[in-house]
């Protein structure tokens, strides 16, 4: 397989409601990534578009609808979707195109326009439930996250304070992100711990908001990087992994994300990483809820089971700590436009590794990072390792 590098990235603001159509959002992110990569649409051999269900934007066959804004007109094009895992998975699908030799340059564009859904995207999320087993109980999506969080906290005896601390860290980190929806430099632990209970143990400030937004990255082969002299702005993809667990989530013990561990194992093996705690310099795990950052750090092998909370407590995961986690501000601070989180996962790794993260730049030198996304009914893990 060929070596593949990320040579440019772009994203729009993440907000609860943006005026642009999905096509326009896709264009804005894609254009920015192309400009960063110093390329034009004619340089792109293939396009991958990642986006969550058609039901959010309210446009059937959304992949086809968004393709012109993604630069895919009359090109090899595919739309991928793996639930919340799409934010990292679409970059993996783009990677396949270039690593295989089928394309020299691939453009990956992810978009989400959840604001179309009335009164709240929640009403569409509701259809993820099994019609016979779950829907008659009139469930709210927050219930399953609450159940997973409860199981995780109870099995390991983790105090809620250790979980809430993640929300504080990420919302504060997000102050350095120009696109952030929920940055808050003044937020305190008390603010989070006293916020209203949605479905115990989940409280309002434990959750990331729905958002509109788009993000894009340009992937190029080593030859292209050499020919165009892009080495200084390239971060290489070292390993990719993805895994999904059964949809019968009531049959699984939710305290540990097995599917993330397997995806990470796959990516680490390719990246020749056998001691992730030592060899990974910083991480962008998926944090739609504060407890998920901890849950995923354990799945990624960056913390022992039940111990990730200690790392936040001790400041290890702050931007200036030994293992910065979510230096972007994560979904909790920047926003959660599902697939467009590409910009704060893969995009953040790219900007940190190439020294372009501005106010968010990690002060210690970083050479290897891991990003991860998570999706569906607590099922999906996608992992990408990148390095200089």
């Amino acid at each position, binding site marked *: 397989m060929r070596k593949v590098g990320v040579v440019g990235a772009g994203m729009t603001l993440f907000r609860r409601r943006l*005026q642009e159509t999905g096509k*326009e959002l896709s264009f804005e992110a894609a254009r920015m990534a192309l400009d960063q990569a110093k390329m034009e649409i004619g340089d792109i051999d293939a396009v991958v578009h990642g986006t969550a269900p058609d039901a959010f934007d309210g446009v059937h066959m959304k992949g086809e609808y968004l393709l012109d804004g993604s630069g895919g007109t009359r090109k090899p094009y595919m739309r991928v979707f793996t639930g919340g895992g799409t934010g990292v998975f679409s970059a993996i699908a783009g990677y396949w195109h270039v690593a295989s030799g089928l394309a020299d340059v691939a453009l990956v564009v992810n978009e989400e326009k959840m604001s179309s859904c009335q009164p709240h995207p929640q009403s569409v999320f509701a259809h993820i439930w099994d019609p016979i087993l779950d829907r008659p109980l009139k469930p709210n999506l927050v219930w399953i996250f609450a159940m997973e969080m409860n199981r995780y906290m109870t099995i390991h005896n983790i105090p809620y304070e250790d979980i809430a601390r993640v929300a504080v860290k990420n919302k504060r980190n997000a102050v350095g992100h120009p696109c952030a929806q929920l940055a808050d430099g003044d937020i305190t632990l008390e603010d989070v711990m006293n916020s209203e209970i949605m479905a115990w143990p989940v409280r309002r400030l434990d959750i990331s908001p729905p958002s509109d937004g788009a993000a894009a990255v340009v992937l190029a082969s080593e030859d292209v990087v050499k020919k165009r002299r892009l080495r200084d702005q390239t971060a290489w993809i070292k390993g990719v992994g993805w895994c999904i667990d059964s949809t019968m989530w009531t049959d699984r013990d939710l305290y540990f994300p097995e599917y993330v561990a397997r995806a990470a194992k796959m990516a680490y093996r390719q990246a020749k990483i056998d001691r992730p705690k030592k060899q990974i310099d910083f991480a962008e795990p998926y944090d739609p809820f504060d407890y998920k950052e901890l849950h995923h750090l354990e799945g990624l092998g960056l913390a022992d089971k039940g111990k990730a909370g200690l790392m936040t407590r001790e400041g290890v995961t702050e931007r200036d700590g030994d293992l910065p986690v979510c230096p972007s501000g994560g979904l909790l601070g920047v926003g959660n436009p599902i697939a467009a989180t590409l910009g704060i996962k893969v995009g953040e790794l790219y900007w940190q590794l190439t020294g372009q993260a501005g106010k968010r730049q990690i002060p210690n030198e970083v050479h290897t990072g891991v990003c991860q996304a998570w999706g569906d009914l607590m099922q999906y893990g996608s992992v990408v390792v990148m390095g200089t």
Partner: protein
Amino acid sequence: MTFTERTTDARMFRHWPGDIEADYIYTSGLAGERFFRELRDRGHLAGTRCSECGKQWIPPKLFCEECFKETHEWVDLPRTGTVAATCVVRVALDGAPLRAPEVWGLVRFAGFQGGLVHRLLVTEDRARAGLRVRPVLKPEGSRSGAITDIEGFAP
């Protein structure tokens, strides 16, 4: 090897009825906002032009599909267009027959890529490609900034 047991009496099968509830508000977007405001407030149609390749687009696009660059110029559509294709519809979305057939067409405009799909305000026997048509708008007070501000296209 398939299931070890299989029910063959279809009356034994259960179904679970339900619906997918969803409700949507779509914004017109940045290009669409200007297009629909011009239509609603000034009663005229405009498209965008790409300054790189010169291609003009209707419906107007924020970006040129060919060059993948942002468009910045707005150009009025010619006052008439030409019907590129027509169809006559006799059945509603739910399958019920319509009381009177509806004539629909794709209208193209000289110098512009694309076109508009809309009602053709002609009887069935007069519907044909090649007809020169102009837009017929709803009265100013009834326009809301939507494609339905155009009543249809007439010869």
